[in-house]
């Protein structure tokens, strides 16, 4: 079986571990990821200005292109997922804007492409995933960090409950690890403020890691490459700002799943994690 997927800019650069481990996961369950040909950037961040039509062009063209290939497209990056899904929703609601954009573009889009996140795919195919688990991740206490983009706005994203989501925890349970709830799992890591207001991003990421640790989490799992950067790469600065802070490893959900599915270590991309994941993985006998 083949599944069409849109990687987006970061999966080929700083989020390679997400890309390679995701491919390993899908290989293990017998599905080939077919990359959307000649894709380009989704523009990142859905525009919130109602009169900004320019920002809808990139998502529309990607959706139109994907539709030519297949009625469904898998989008692993949370920002791309959010942007494409919101654009899709808006273009469906606002047919006038859709017509105007279609009139100006070579592509023509009808608003019906299905945008799918890997976590949704694994939820809908839980038995398939469960049957392929080779290594139980028992006792690994995982904090599932959702961030913003998979959850909000709920009306448009329809992913899970925005205040008390469970899709990630169910996923973590299905690979044998122990999900640990922590209140800040749905709050913002600071997102792109890391570029313009680094202190704000540092503090919010620090707060939510502390919150996770305080609830007994010993590994944080996320799906978004930007959250991943803020939570993982900023830890060195967190230690400087808060000397009592103990660093905690951060994983992509696909790295955890690939581990459970018995993927080769070279496909996990663990060497790119800034906070070393090896100590904990060895401690739990997972490598």
């Amino acid at each position, binding site marked *: 079986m083949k599944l069409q997927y849109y990687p*987006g*800019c*970061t999966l080929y*650069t*700083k*989020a390679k571990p997400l890309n390679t481990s995701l491919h390993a996961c899908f290989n293990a369950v017998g599905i080939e990821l077919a990359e959307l040909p000649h894709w380009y*950037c989704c*523009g*990142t*961040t859905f*525009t*919130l*200005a*109602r*009169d*900004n039509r320019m*920002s809808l062009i990139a998502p529309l063209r990607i959706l139109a292109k994907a539709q030519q290939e297949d009625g469904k497209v898998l989008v692993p*990056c949370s*920002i791309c997922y959010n942007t494409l899904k919101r654009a899709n929703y808006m273009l469906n609601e606002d047919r006038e804007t859709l017509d105007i954009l279609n009139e100006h573009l070579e592509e023509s889009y009808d608003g019906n492409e299905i945008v799918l996140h890997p976590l949704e795919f694994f939820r809908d195919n839980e038995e398939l995933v469960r049957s392929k688990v080779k290594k139980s991740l028992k006792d690994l206490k995982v904090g599932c960090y959702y961030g*913003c983009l998979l*959850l*909000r*706005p*709920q009306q448009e994203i329809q992913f899970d409950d*925005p*205040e008390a989501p469970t899709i990630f925890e169910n996923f973590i349970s299905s690979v044998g690890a122990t999900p640990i709830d922590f209140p800040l799992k*749905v*709050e*913002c890591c*600071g*997102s*792109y*403020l*890391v*570029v*313009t*207001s*680094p*202190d*704000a991003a540092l503090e*919010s990421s620090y*707060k939510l890691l502390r919150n996770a640790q305080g609830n007994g989490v010993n590994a944080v799992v996320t799906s978004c*490459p*930007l959250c*991943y*950067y803020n939570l993982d*790469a900023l830890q060195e600065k967190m230690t400087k700002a808060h000397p009592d802070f103990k660093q905690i490893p951060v994983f992509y959900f696909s790295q955890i799943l690939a581990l459970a599915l018995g993927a080769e270590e070279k496909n996990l991309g663990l060497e790119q994690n800034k906070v070393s994941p090896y100590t904990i993985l060895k401690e739990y006998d997972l490598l």
Partner: protein
Amino acid sequence: MNKILADKDLTRRIEEISDQKLSDCYQCGRCTAGCPFAEFMDVPPNQVIRFMQLGLKEDLLKTQGPWFCAACLVCQARCPRGVDIPRLMEAVRTIHLRAKEGLIDVPEIDKEFLLDAPPLALISAFSKFTY
């Protein structure tokens, strides 16, 4: 004294760009209570909205609050009146950016960070802080 002269034009523009109705907000402050970045803002979200409601142009255009909004939408999810607050914050930024104010200054970004940061962080910031 011109502070008390409401700028109706500005209020109308904010409502147009954001597609929100300012009179929907009854100032309960729930947006500010849950905002992860309120502590960094000189004026918190509900007060920024108050400036809009009253048409206090000077105060509204002076505040740095909207620039700390990461559009995380926690406030939007919790607003009992269904106000999409991040759209209002975007409207303020949009007004500034279209007047070429508050644009991101790329040469000012730390070089080491530029090499280290994931592309989507930079592209997001560029698309949010340009026009």
